[in-house]
Structures are given as C-alpha cells and as structure tokens.
C-alpha cells in the first residue's frame, strides 16, 4: 500500500504548527490510501526525535547536521526527491509556508510530478488523490485530480487538524549531500520575535484606511496583545501602499491569503482584492464607521462605529473575557 510522506518543517531549531498540520493532513491521506505516514525533516542534531514526538508518523527520516540548523532548500529538496524515488509514496505533503512553497516545486521538478499549492482539502477515492485549492486569491476554488503517483501538495495553514499526540515513530538517519546546494542560506534575520506572521496566526487584526494614520496602530497592537500569542496584525493594501505598514502584513490578492479562526477587519472598507485574501476566515468581525462598507457583506458580526471609540472598549473587554477564563 502506498505511504504518505510529510515534510515536517523545522524553523529556528523546532518543528511547530506547520509540521503538525502536515502530519495531520498526511494522516488523512494515508487513511484513504491504506498506507503509513512517514515524516522527513532537516535540522540540527535531535531534529528526528523532536519530529517523532509530534506523533502521527511511523517513521521519521531525519537529515541532521550543524550546517542544517539554517534551512538549505536545495539540500532538502534533493534528499526528499531521492527518498520519494526510493520508496512507495502515493502522496507527499508540504506546508504552504515560505519554506514549503520554496522547496515543493524543487522536488516536483526533480521527480517530474505535479504539485498543487495551498490545498484546503484532500480526498482519496480508489487510490486517486483529489484536492481543492483556491485560485484568484480565493475568488474561485479549483478541484484537481492527480493522474499518477505520488500526488504532491502543499497545505494552507489553519486548515488541517494536527495528529493526536501518540507514540513516536522510528527515527531513521537520512543522508544529505552538501554538494546539492546551488544556493546557500547564510543567515536568517528574524524581526520582532513576539510578532507572529499574519499568514500563520489563528487570530488576525487588520487595519485599513479608517485607522487614519500609522500613529493610531498602537490601538490595533493593543487588541492583538489582549487576544494573546496566537494573534497577529494584518493590513489592507491601501495602508501598505500609503507606507503606513510593511508589505509583510498585507492581506489580499497582492499580499497574503489568510484563513484564521477569527479575523477582525478594523476600518477596512472591503475592496474585492482584500476580501479575496480573508474570506475563508472562520469568523469575521467588521468594525467600520460606514454601515454600507462592503466588508459587512462578508462579516459574521458587524459593529458600526468610530474605531477610535470602539477599539479601546473592545480591547478592555477582550482582556476581561480572556482573563476571566
């Protein structure tokens, strides 16, 4: 029976949510294909054991070396391609993270198999893998059926459930070849360590032109702080184009597409290209002075009002609600 290989991404020395979600998605596919879940990971010594500890995989192929403490895309892609060619895999799952989206196509080219990126659901019927993925930044959903094995896919964050923590799989040392590196990643510069990326956060607070200027962003930062570690700031294109906020925070068709559990659109009018980037959020809250703003058409809960009056009250109320358990 064909197995499923999951790329457990290790960043900053640890395998986090992206790796857990990949193993969860791999588990769903393996159940349909009748095989086992194998994980593959690269990092410093101890990476294999750490990934095995996430559960969900019967085997963990670990490429470990000091040099791999910084992710090296070519070395990883070449080793994954060799692993796929030497095994029996019906599907290979990557995370749709910056790293996963960089490596996935390198693997796809090496083995000559198609890759579907940003997958939001996957099914197996009679051994054939069918996936759904957004196109046009979420304005349409494509259904794709793979015509051979393995099916390669990268999964969108916050869509697939992690595996139940179980017994760790066997760690198998994976050979890596430094000679595979055509590019060398020499440094990783992390910005504000406390600030989660908008693409990965489970709660997003986005500000739009209704915030009236970058000097008012402390109000949104206050709400993010009150919402806890899983929350991050987002921004509309208008405020990024105006230079109020960095592009890394932009949500929408020329920014990031997000699907958090909870999305606050504050002073965001809801241009079609912004809606495309956030409409798959599970719960959407819109706060806007203009009751006719298009954002209210996609919001689960709307609050019409002056953001400068509402935000401090909301931040206090969130703090009380969370503090009170």
């Amino acid at each position: 029976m064909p197995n499923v290989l999951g790329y457990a991404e290790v960043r900053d020395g640890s395998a986090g949510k992206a790796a857990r979600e990949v193993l969860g998605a791999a588990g769903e596919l393996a159940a349909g294909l009748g095989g086992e879940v194998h994980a593959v990971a690269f990092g410093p010594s101890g990476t294999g054991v750490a990934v095995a500890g996430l559960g969900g995989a019967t085997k963990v192929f670990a490429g470990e070396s000091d040099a791999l403490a910084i992710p090296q895309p070519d070395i990883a892609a070449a080793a994954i391609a060799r692993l796929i060619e030497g095994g029996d895999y019906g599907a290979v799952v990557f995370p749709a993270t910056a790293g996963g989206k960089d490596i996935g196509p390198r693997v796809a080219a090496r083995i000559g198999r198609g890759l579907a990126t940003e997958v939001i659901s996957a099914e197996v019927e009679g051994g054939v893998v069918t996936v759904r993925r957004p196109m046009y930044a979420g304005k349409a959903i494509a259904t794709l059926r793979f015509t051979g094995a393995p099916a390669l896919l990268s999964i969108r964050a916050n869509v697939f459930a992690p595996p139940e923590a179980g017994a760790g799989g066997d760690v198998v040392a994976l050979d890596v070849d430094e000679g595979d590196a055509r590019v060398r990643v020499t440094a990783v510069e992390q910005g504000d360590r406390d600030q989660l990326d908008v693409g990965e956060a489970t709660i997003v607070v986005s500000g739009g032109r209704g915030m009236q200027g970058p000097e008012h962003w402390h109000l949104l930062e206050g709400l993010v702080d009150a919402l806890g570690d899983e929350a991050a700031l987002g921004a509309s294109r208008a405020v990024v184009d105006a230079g109020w906020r960095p592009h890394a925070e932009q949500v929408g068709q020329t920014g990031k597409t997000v699907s958090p559990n909870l999305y606050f659109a504050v002073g965001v009018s809801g241009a079609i290209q912004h809606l495309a980037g956030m409409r798959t959020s599970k719960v959407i809250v819109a706060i806007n002075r203009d009751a006719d703003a298009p954002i209210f058409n996609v919001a689960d809960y709307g609050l019409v009002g002056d953001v400068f009056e509402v935000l401090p009250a909301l931040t206090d109320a969130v703090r009380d609600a969370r503090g009170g358990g």
Partner: protein
Amino acid sequence: MNTIVCIKRVPDSATRVKIGADGASLDPDGVKFVVNPYDEFALEEAIRRKEDAGEGTVIAISVGPSETAEAVRQALAMGADEGVLLTCDGSHDPIAVARALASEIEGRAYDLVLFGKQAIDDDNMQVPQLVAEFLGLPCATVVVGLEIDGGRATARREVEGGHEVIEFSLPAVVSTQKGLNEPRYPSLKGIMAAKKKPLEEKDIVLDDATFELVSLDLPPAPAAGRIVGEGAEAVPDLIAALREEAGVL
C-alpha cells in the same frame, strides 16, 4: 548584464470572477487583463540594472494565447529590448509551462532569469523554481533585496516574520516580491518605442498536465452575518456573540 524576464498576462486584481461555460475556467468576458503585478518588480529590476550598467539586454518572455502579445508590448514599453511570446492555450499545470520556458531560455546568453514571485491568477508560486531546476540553476524566491558583485549574488528573501540571506553564483533564477523596487510606468516615449521593438511569436505545444483540472467553482457565499450594534455600547454584545455563538474567544 543580460536578463531574461518571464511575465504572465493575468486578470486585474479588481476582477469579479465568473466561471466559464465549461465549469473549469474563468469566463474572460469583460475581464481586464494586465501584466502580473509581481512581474513588474522583475521587469523594473532588469531594466534598472541594464540602465545602471549602461550595457546588456532585457528580453521579456511569456507563454499564453495570442492576446498575451499586449502584455509583452507593455514590458517593451517599460524598457525591455525584445519580446518572445510562446503562443498556446496555456496549461493549469506549472510543470508544462516551466518546461516550455526552460527550453526557450536554454541556449540563450544570460546572467539572470527573473520572475514575479507568483501569478495572481492561479497563485501557484512554482514556475520560477521549476524553471531553475530544469535549467540546473541556483534559485532564490520571494526576493526583496538583490546585490550582484561580478558573478556572485546575495539576495534577501521574505520568510515568516523576517528574512533569509541567500548567496549564489550567476547565472541564476530569482523571483521578485514587492519591496525590491518601485516599478515605473511606461512613458509615452517608451510606448512609442515599443511598437518598433522585436516581438517574436512562436506557436508551441505544451506537455500534457500531470493532474486534471476537474472544476472551478465560486466559493460558497458567506453565511448571512448580522450587525450586533453601534458604537462602544455594542462591544459587550460582540464579545458575547464571539464567546457563546462562535466559540472563538
């Protein structure tokens, strides 16, 4: 410095998507097509480097239906020297498109192959890496900073919450992200000059896709929401709704 810039013709980001009669494509009726916005960073980078160096050529290559010639002319109007259009119906499989681009690029003399980081229609973010692999070249993606010194390059690439610094030798493939530069608008002079620049059109046949596009559907309409109230007085109602109805707080 000789640069090849691969561009794509895509629907403008303000497009309202309608599904075509085949149930598996965009209905192009009334859609305004533009050069993929991320490709403008690639074009700007190539043209600026050529201008700064005072030598070299910029060739814009695209794959798509004959209407794509308009997008290639736009690249010429910005300042590219030559255009090549590989005419075909296109494919939903990035591997097929990348193979066609790689075989066109192979054998040309170049230092850099630039792409936008992704096309805003299919959002695949794959073709730059695929082309690099097919050509056996170094590849840096989602690049917001690029320094070139002789045959060596250092790129800054955007990752979650920060950047990676990547070093590689030329020739190489680089995909560009907003922040790398500020793309120019074509000048009137540039638009006039573009009409006289060479644009070669070649009919090609793409490889078969490795997966099937079964259907394209509009996303489910959002469930009707409700206005919980007005002003700060409505905040307790909002909190109650998020905690008790939605269970997300």
